[in-house]
């Protein structure tokens, strides 16, 4: 039903998730290999991997019986999207102010 939505910042705010991203900078790794390097439960690792995949930081592909993770730049782009969103937002605000000034002060 209600699914927790993670944004890019929450996604990489977690130490384990950053460690997973770090591991993947060297090479692609299967979920099993990743899980073996951590002292936390496999379901917990699976959840972290799902968060990273949902927020676009990693790709998961099926190779035979293995599920293999690799880095993806989309998560980083999402952060850029926020800055772009606000830039557009403020430009609109300042434009609205200009229109109101024109209307009120030059009437």
């Amino acid at each position: 039903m209600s699914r927790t939505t993670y944004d890019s910042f929450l996604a990489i705010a977690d130490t384990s998730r950053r460690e997973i991203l770090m591991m993947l900078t060297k090479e692609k790794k299967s979920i099993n290999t990743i899980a073996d390097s951590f002292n936390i439960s496999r379901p917990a690792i699976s959840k972290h991997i799902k968060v990273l995949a949902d927020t676009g930081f990693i790709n998961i592909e099926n190779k035979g019986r293995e599920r293999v993770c690799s880095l993806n730049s989309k998560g980083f782009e999402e952060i850029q999207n926020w800055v772009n969103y606000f830039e557009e937002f403020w430009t609109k605000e300042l434009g609205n102010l200009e229109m109101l000034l024109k209307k009120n002060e030059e009437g």
Partner: protein
Amino acid sequence: MKKEIHLNWFYPYPTETIWKYLTDPELLRQWSSIHKTTPFEAREGFEWTEQQKPRRGWDGIMYLKVLEVVPNQKLSYSLKGGPKPGELSLDTIVTYELTSVDGGTELHLSHTGFEGFKGAFTAFIMEKGWMKIFNKRFRKFINEQIVNV
């Protein structure tokens, strides 16, 4: 990667007039989408919230708090938000600065300190041993994404 927003806007009116439009609750309500529901008070510590259209990773609620008021010169407030109440991953500062120029006022708007972003990224990069294990490709990628502003 661009981490700050800076906008300059010229208005052909005196700074006092622009200041009035930045701080008067009735005037603000008429032009600004972050002042639709709560009458603004231009004093340090004044807090309000405003609902915007939600987007991915954001419930659309802006949590705002006035940080600094210098009449006719400067107004700044914090702007926070996140996917749900209590999870404020976005933690930023918005500042309006007015400068009297020939024929009117220059307004400089900055939106900076994207701490949710920057804090997480800094932690991400500064992680122990991080640089050692960086391969060339990813280092280049990070440079493109973060270092270039």
